[in-house]
């Protein structure tokens, strides 16, 4: 176990499988406190599956994920529930509870874990919505707002309990370039102001280079990770053709420096 107290998340020898079908094996990575950690790779390589393992939705076939030095899956139910409380998750489509207004969506989470009176809860929900630029939409239902707004509202809900770790599943999927960029800015601002650690699943190169401090590159052919580290450094120094191809949209294939040495 690492003695470095600055390590927030450590993935150790993780093997993910659906039944007997192994999706990825032997993934290991460390994420320091306050970093934006990117899980990248081509479509269908198991990025979202890795995220599901990290947020407690899927049990690993082997290995574990350590938060602040404590293993998640080897711990008992009570510890896991406690960990979940310090997580915030933004699902791909927001996954807002469709039978509740935005304020109720956020208020529900707050109501479960705090003893604030209703007026206070509503005020906090309003604040969280204002943080993501949705002030005034408290009483809208998820079906009444656009996909991009749903995503931001989902982020507001993920922020409800002031989480230590925020997880994003493809934050820019389905967003226009400007909204997508705004979301990236928002992530960076939140990281600087909240001091939280971020885990982002994405394959948007622009996002990867703008927000990523650390990353892991998953390769569906070898079914394991091919590279890890700062994506900008990987672009400069990685000699792995698959990584280079991914980070340069395939333009590196003709580049001699990118060939394996």
């Amino acid at each position, binding site marked *: 176990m690492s003695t470095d107290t600055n390590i927030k998340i450590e993935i150790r020898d993780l093997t993910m499988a659906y039944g007997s079908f192994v999706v990825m094996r032997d993934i290991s990575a460390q994420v320091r406190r306050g970093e934006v950690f990117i899980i990248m790779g081509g479509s269908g390589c198991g990025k979202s599956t890795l995220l599901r393992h990290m*947020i*407690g*939705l899927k049990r690993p076939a082997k290995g574990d994920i350590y938060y602040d030095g404590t293993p998640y899956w080897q711990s008992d139910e009570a510890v896991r*529930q406690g960990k*979940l*409380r310090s*997580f915030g*998750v933004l*699902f*791909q*489509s927001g*996954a*807002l*509870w*469709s*039978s509740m207004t935005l304020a109720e969506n956020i208020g*529900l*989470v707050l109501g*479960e874990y705090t003893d604030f009176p209703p007026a206070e809860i509503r005020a906090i929900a309003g604040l969280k919505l204002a943080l993501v630029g949705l002030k005034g939409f408290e009483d809208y239902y998820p079906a009444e707002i656009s996909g991009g707004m749903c995503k931001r509202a989902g982020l507001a809900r993920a922020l409800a309990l002031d989480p230590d770790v925020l997880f994003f599943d493809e934050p820019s999927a389905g967003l226009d370039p400007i909204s997508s960029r705004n979301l990236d800015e928002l992530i960076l601002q939140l990281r600087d102001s909240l001091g939280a650690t971020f885990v982002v699943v994405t394959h948007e190169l622009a996002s990867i280079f703008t927000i990523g401090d650390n990353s892991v590159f998953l390769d569906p052919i070898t079914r394991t990770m091919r590279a890890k580290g700062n994506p900008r450094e990987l672009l400069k120094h990685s000699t792995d053709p698959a990584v280079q191809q991914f980070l340069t949209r395939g333009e590196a294939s003709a580049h001699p420096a990118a060939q394996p040495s």
Partner: protein
Amino acid sequence: MLIVEIAGDWLDRSSLPDLAAVQHELAHTQAKALEFDASALGHWDSALMVRILALFDLCTKAKSEFRAATLPEGLAKLIALSQAVPEKSDAVRKSTTPSFLQRVGESGLTAWTGGTSMLSFLGESVVASLKLVRGQAQFRWSDTLLVIQQCGPEALGIVGLINFLIGMILAFVGATELTQFGASIYTADLVAIASVREMACIMTGIIICGRTGAAFAAQLGTMKVNQEIEAFQTFGISSFEFLVLPRMMALVLMMPLLCLFADLIAIAGGFLVSTLMLDVSPLLYLDRTVASISLTAFLLGVFKGAFFGVIVALTGCLRGMQCGTNAAAVGQATTSAVVTGITWIIASDGIFAVICSALHI
């Protein structure tokens, strides 16, 4: 060398020329290459492409050279494009027919996992109910009230209509037989006992299963598709307590009331038929009705109603929570919720009948 001549417009979708002639020629002449003469080719679409790709495959098999360059430029490019990415051999689905033993084993395993998941769901519902009694369950009363409104008052119309008709049918059938013995007044007993003990609660259970059970499965299934259920999990909120408990409570509270309503309406149906068509005096009919219903029979019917409510809530929610993650799965979940629900309602009513006869109730 073999030259294939393509001419005219290739837009006819009904008939395409057979390639047997080309295959025959290739095999016979052992041609080294296949070329095309497309000088007279008019308009064409994908149908021609498919034929040409088939020729390409024939050439590969006969080890002849396929000279794509002799095709018109557009066609040649499309052919090249379709060949650019090699077929991913492990991605192609093979339809194999499993052996008899394999199928028996698979269906056995499916039945086993289905049974265990049903049992664990049942266990969870007991745990959640205990938590509810101790006041520790996480759910919102506003959700419960909404479900109560949807499955109670809003179902009054259909429950009333069906049970009124059932009461009338019972009276008709009973009267036809009983008049032969000059005992038409006992139609009142027949209608009262049959509806209060059995028909009212069974019919209400089936109606609520088709109406509310299906709605539960579809709601929860759609929430599953939208990852809303997973969102509950990641916030550490028990989706069982939050979604299943209010629905179960609502049905347990509403079903006895609906059964009571159904009892009254069914008796009213029988009353109408008897008094209008059988010349039974209204007062006598009511008198016989009151005399024939025992408190035990009445309570038994109401209790069974509440029990069927639990069945409908559990099967509806179970199928909704088990739902896959696409639109078709929501449909399957709904169908399966109604089928499972009705089956269990009828089966458990049979068990009740056996128990009651053993206890002489």
